[in-house]
């Protein structure tokens, strides 16, 4: 199958997946106790007020009717308006996407070269001190929950030493890049391990493969063999892991956003779920589902480029 046809089929399938995700999210939020009216009414609310809010929000109408309306709107590109603030959902998505994209993109820009370099270094010195140090450090970082790492980094570098801003509160992310340093370190720490381990394993396999041995016999230089022959083979499995990581990053890494006060999609999601603001939750579900479909498609096409044979057979 040609990559183009493959992409078209995957996108069609993706559309179905997005609809399915949205339906499931709707049902799940319906199943949660309380609704937007209860959430909005606050503590010790008067039940009459809750009923009144429910009527103003249209929550007294059957859920199916509301969902149907929303899906029809979606088909026209209309994400609806927030139950609570009345602002268009698109505005929420637009506001949250910026910080999340900045964080995700920068995290990837750091993560990919760094993990490839570490993986290659470890593979070339397999079993040696460099390999062992890289392995120990990356596995060590992987084993710290990002929340704990964030707390420690903030305490040491933000509060005690005052080298870096401890949070990004009120800051313009691109205007004050210093606020991004600690969140990025936390975001990169865990996936660094999985990706560099995959690159290392792939590199070791590739260096021991028949085609690398053949290339050596043909007299091709060591550097070329490592980077032009072995490395592309080692990257194919890592690409899939990078895709998963990208999903994770674009999903708004909720903990990191909360601890560092980055008003991204994760924060919006937490707020919207707490407020039972269904249109916003569903809008986010659409964004997350679409991202997942697209990112994985891109990863597959990239993997096709890196390992033409495997995808051609599949």
């Amino acid at each position: 199958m040609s990559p183009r046809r493959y992409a078209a089929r995957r996108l069609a399938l993706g559309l179905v997946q997005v609809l399915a995700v949205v339906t499931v999210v709707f049902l799940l939020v319906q199943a949660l106790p309380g609704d937007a009216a209860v959430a909005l009414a606050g503590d010790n609310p008067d039940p009459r007020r809750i009923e009144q809010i429910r009527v103003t929000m249209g929550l007294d109408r059957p859920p199916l009717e509301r969902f149907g309306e929303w899906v029809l709107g979606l088909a026209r590109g209309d994400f609806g308006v927030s139950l609570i603030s009345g602002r268009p959902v698109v505005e929420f998505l637009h506001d949250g996407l910026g910080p999340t994209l900045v964080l995700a993109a920068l995290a990837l820009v750091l993560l990919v070269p760094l993990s490839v370099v570490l993986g290659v270094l470890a593979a070339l010195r397999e079993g040696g001190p460099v390999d062992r140090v890289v392995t120990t450090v990356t596995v060590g970082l992987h084993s710290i929950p990002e929340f704990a790492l964030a707390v420690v980094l903030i305490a040491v570098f933000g509060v005690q030493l005052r080298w870096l801003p401890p949070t990004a509160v009120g800051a313009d992310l691109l205007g004050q890049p210093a606020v991004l340093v600690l969140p990025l370190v936390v975001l990169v720490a865990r996936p660094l391990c999985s990706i560099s381990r995959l690159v290392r394993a792939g590199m070791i396999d590739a260096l021991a493969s028949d085609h690398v041995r053949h290339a050596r016999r043909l007299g091709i230089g060591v550097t070329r063999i490592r980077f032009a022959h072995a490395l592309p083979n080692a990257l194919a499995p890592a690409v899939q892991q990078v895709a998963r990581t990208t999903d994770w990053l674009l999903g708004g890494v909720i903990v990191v956003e909360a601890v560092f006060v980055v008003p991204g999609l994760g924060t919006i999601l937490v707020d919207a779920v707490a407020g039972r603001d269904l249109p916003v939750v569903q809008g986010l579900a659409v964004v997350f589902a679409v991202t997942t479909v697209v990112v994985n498609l891109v990863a597959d096409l990239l993997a096709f480029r890196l390992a033409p044979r495997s995808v051609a057979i599949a």
Partner: protein
Amino acid sequence: MHPLTRRGFLGLTAGLSFAALTGCGTAEPTSAASTPRAGGRLRAAFAGGGAKEVLDPHLANLFVEAARSKALYDKLADLGPDVAAQPRLAEKWEPDATLTRWRITLRRAVFHNGQPVRAEDVLASYARILDPNRAFRAKSSLALIDLANSRAVDERTVEFAVKRPFVEFPNVLAAFGAYIVPAGTEDFTSPVGSGPFRFVSFEPGKSVLLKRNAEYWEGAPHLDELEFVIANEESARANALLGGQVEYAHDLTPTTARSHAAGDRMAIHRAPNSAVQAFAMKLDRPPFDNRDLREAMFLLADRPQLVESVLAGSGQVGNDLFGKGYQHYADDIPQRTRDLDKAKFLIRKAGAEGLTVKLDTSTAAAGMVEAATVFADQVKGSGLTVEVVTGNKDSYWSDTLKNGSLSSFRSGAMPIETHIAQRLLSGSGTNVTKWARPEFDALYDQAVSTVDETRRGEVYREMQRSLHAEGGYLMWGFADWIVGAAPNVGGISTAPANTLDWARFDKVWLG
């Protein structure tokens, strides 16, 4: 009915403050904060929620929204440090002899667009809140006003018709969210009010920037600029303050306060009596329909221990009555203390020995689960067993209003009259304890139609005596409201949260 929802998410962070790392500083009050100085930008961090943040003051719900509304707008009246209404945009108020017509004289104030604040704006603002098709928060408080028969006497005089005699009408004018906006305003993207600060810019979920209103009727603020930023996590607010990213961090936990009280990077400001912590017993069903058993519960609570362990010492013991330190509070009633023997006797007398009572609680408000656990422990050995049941936090308030017999309770500040009207009358909407007594209702009616303040106070005391003796609220403590600020910030008031002086930035300066 004021918002006290702390964001429960990642509650762990609160406990993990960096005492070990930063607790080594010495307590050295900065003198810069003691004399007012003009100028500067103050950044204030509040919890917020992207989804709910709007600049419509009538929709305000969260603390950050209340604080922003206060900076941009005025109410006719607001609550003073004793939680009694005091005039704001209203210069004075005069009821007629029947207490059903109130004449309000407005102050000479102007909106940020230069237009004067007129009687017409007041009526339009109230009409907007009372719109039957909307559900603004102040609606139920203002429902007492008969708007059709109210009128603007002249540009600066409003005459309100009130549906029944009500001497506490100023409490209505001070209701949460009852702000005066220019007549006809529906678009709040660039809000225009009469408050001490003017609007500059708004990024939902992130920040609001305001600047000094030099023409403010009460005198211009000290600050040049005021920026509200959002940080949902308590630890993030504390860290931002410690890292010098903000100068004011709203709502810190007692643990954070304790670890930084001695440091030189953060000044802790406590506002006592800001929230009451309680257990609510339902009087209309067993087992607490038995008066002896209720009294036994009152006697079982070790209040100092509860304050120490649940509020980390940041609070005061309660005497089963709402509104300690507020106007009309019955402070002449002796403080209850633990008396295990008498409690045992009362339990035996009630025939409740060996009984297990479920105590419903949840993380819906701060300290509730901890208090329930500590109290269950204090009850041990009395013959009664309290079993703590942690329920869903999202539907907690409506669940406990209907079901169970014993539940955790927490409430913010409001006038004692409002507390009674909302929770303790036969027709009250949130009567958790199911306290429904015609003679008590009659006393309330008497109080709100008694013009003489001393005599009125006497009626309130009588009502409180009966609540203290037989009521369903075991109010064991009052929590301090804790705010952290940079050491150079001066002018922060210790008035209870939700009163006029709380989060009042026009009186604050940077030293």
